[in-house]
């Protein structure tokens, strides 16, 4: 017996035969190698049976020779099913539309949850997210990667120490750790102020304590500036010496700058391509044709589509191709020196605390060799040079000696 599943695919026809000698007709059909099954009798003169759709033509010949009448009464299987599907295409369309809608909605952002943030920070984060395009109702494949969001957030929102970004289904979860900056209790232990750098003192503002040095004095690192021991020689009192001691310090900076240099920059020309990636096979959706960039960089951004919480093998890939250009920069000597100075200034500012002032600058040495400008510059800086140093018990008799000892170490 042959497998009837295959004939189901090809199509099955139910035939009704009426008349005399139906048995003879059946024998004739079997001799013609037509597969017949489910033969049933209905009353005295009629039988029905099923045949394959491609055997229908073979039935007509024997039917004409016999005294029976045949009628095809029922059609089933592949081609007929497809035909019915076509006539009821509304249902199919509805099903497909439903599936597409679910697929689309599964890939949208439906919630943003922020945990562990104070209201102010939360507001800031939400604002930043809105700027990044993370909003409720946005398709997820237009949004940057989770890692990128995390990096951007930590960069942009100053109050964050760390933020964990997780995309669970259609909801973004943000776990926030804020920088804790408690108010420092302003309790001072007994302390001296000592110099941190070699400097000339320009200005002194002492809140408490006894000045040991005066303006225009040269000090060495570790040298006592303001003593925390006040009072008469015999009965000295310990206080916390506080104050601002501005000293003039010098920094030497070496800068080198080539006169000619080449850079790789993006020209701003770019081409975007969208692909549908179905388990490895790429199908372009948008952005056809080749780019005409000679030098370029490619960036791939892949977003896996999801159904509810399950991943589908379908991914939307965005490929951005940016044109790269080589730019030549050449300076005249004068310009180069100016640029080098700027560089040096920037460099020095990075090294200094924020409240330091650059008082003056002087080029010590300038040379142009092998197409390079070499500068060594001396900067005159005014900055706070005081540093607190606790007074340790037992040393209170002679704080000055102790500090001198420190400075040499």
């Amino acid at each position, binding site marked *: *017996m042959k497998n009837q599943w295959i004939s189901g695919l090809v199509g099955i026809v139910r035939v009704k035969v009426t008349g005399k000698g*139906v*048995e003879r007709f*059946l*024998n004739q059909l*079997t*001799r013609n*190698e037509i*597969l*017949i*099954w*489910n*033969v*049933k*009798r209905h009353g*005295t003169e009629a*039988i029905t*049976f099923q045949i394959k759709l491609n055997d229908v033509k073979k039935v007509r010949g024997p039917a004409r020779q016999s005294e029976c009448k045949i009628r095809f009464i029922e059609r089933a299987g592949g081609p007929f099913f497809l035909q019915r599907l076509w006539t009821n295409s509304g249902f199919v369309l509805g099903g497909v539309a439903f599936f597409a809608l679910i697929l689309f909605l599964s890939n949208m952002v439906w919630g943003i949850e922020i945990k562990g943030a104070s209201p102010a920070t939360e507001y800031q984060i939400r604002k930043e997210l809105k700027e990044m395009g993370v909003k409720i109702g946005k398709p997820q494949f237009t949004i940057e990667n989770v890692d990128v969001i995390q990096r951007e957030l930590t960069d942009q929102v100053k109050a964050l120490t760390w933020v964990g970004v997780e995309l669970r289904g259609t909801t973004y979860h943000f776990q926030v750790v804020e920088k804790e900056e408690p108010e420092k209790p302003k309790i001072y232990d007994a302390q001296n102020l000592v110099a941190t750098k070699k400097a000339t003192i320009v200005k002194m503002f002492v809140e408490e304590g006894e000045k040991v040095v005066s303006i225009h004095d040269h000090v060495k690192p570790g040298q006592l500036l303001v003593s925390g021991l006040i009072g008469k020689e015999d009965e000295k009192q310990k206080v916390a010496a506080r104050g601002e001691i501005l000293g003039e310090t010098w920094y030497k900076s070496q800068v080198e700058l080539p006169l000619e240099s080449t850079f790789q920059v993006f020209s701003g020309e770019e081409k975007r391509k969208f692909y549908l990636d179905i388990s490895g096979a790429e199908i372009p959706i948008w952005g056809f044709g080749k780019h005409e960039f000679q030098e370029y960089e490619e960036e791939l951004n892949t977003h896996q589509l999801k159904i509810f919480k399950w991943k589908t093998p379908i991914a939307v890939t965005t490929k951005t191709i940016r044109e790269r250009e080589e730019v030549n920069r050449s300076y005249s000597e004068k310009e180069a020196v100016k640029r080098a100075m700027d560089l040096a200034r920037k460099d020095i500012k990075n090294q200094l605390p924020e409240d330091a002032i650059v008082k003056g600058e002087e080029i010590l040495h300038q040379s142009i060799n092998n197409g390079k400008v070499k500068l060594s510059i001396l900067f005159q800086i005014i900055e706070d040079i005081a540093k607190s140093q606790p007074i340790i018990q037992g040393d209170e008799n002679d704080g000055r000696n102790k500090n001198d000892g420190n400075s040499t170490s």
Partner: protein
Amino acid sequence: MAKKWSQLIRNWMTQKMELPPDVMMDLPRITMVGQIHIYIENHRGLLAFSDREVRLLLEQGQLLVKGKAFVIKMILPEEILLEGKIDQVIYINE
């Protein structure tokens, strides 16, 4: 007369040489599964079919199957699979 002689010789040969009789003598081979299925090989055509009775032509004589609610599940030139409730299987020799 000649046909009978050949039959006799075949009969004798199958007995003596222990050959399968259905092959040697064109006899029907009937397989039944309880009362619900009957599978007949080596028939020579359908003579009558109703839901209570099926008559098959054999090389020698006829085979009559009686029962209820017969459906021919499949029919090929020499094979037939019958389904229903089988009560009797009768050989008719004429």
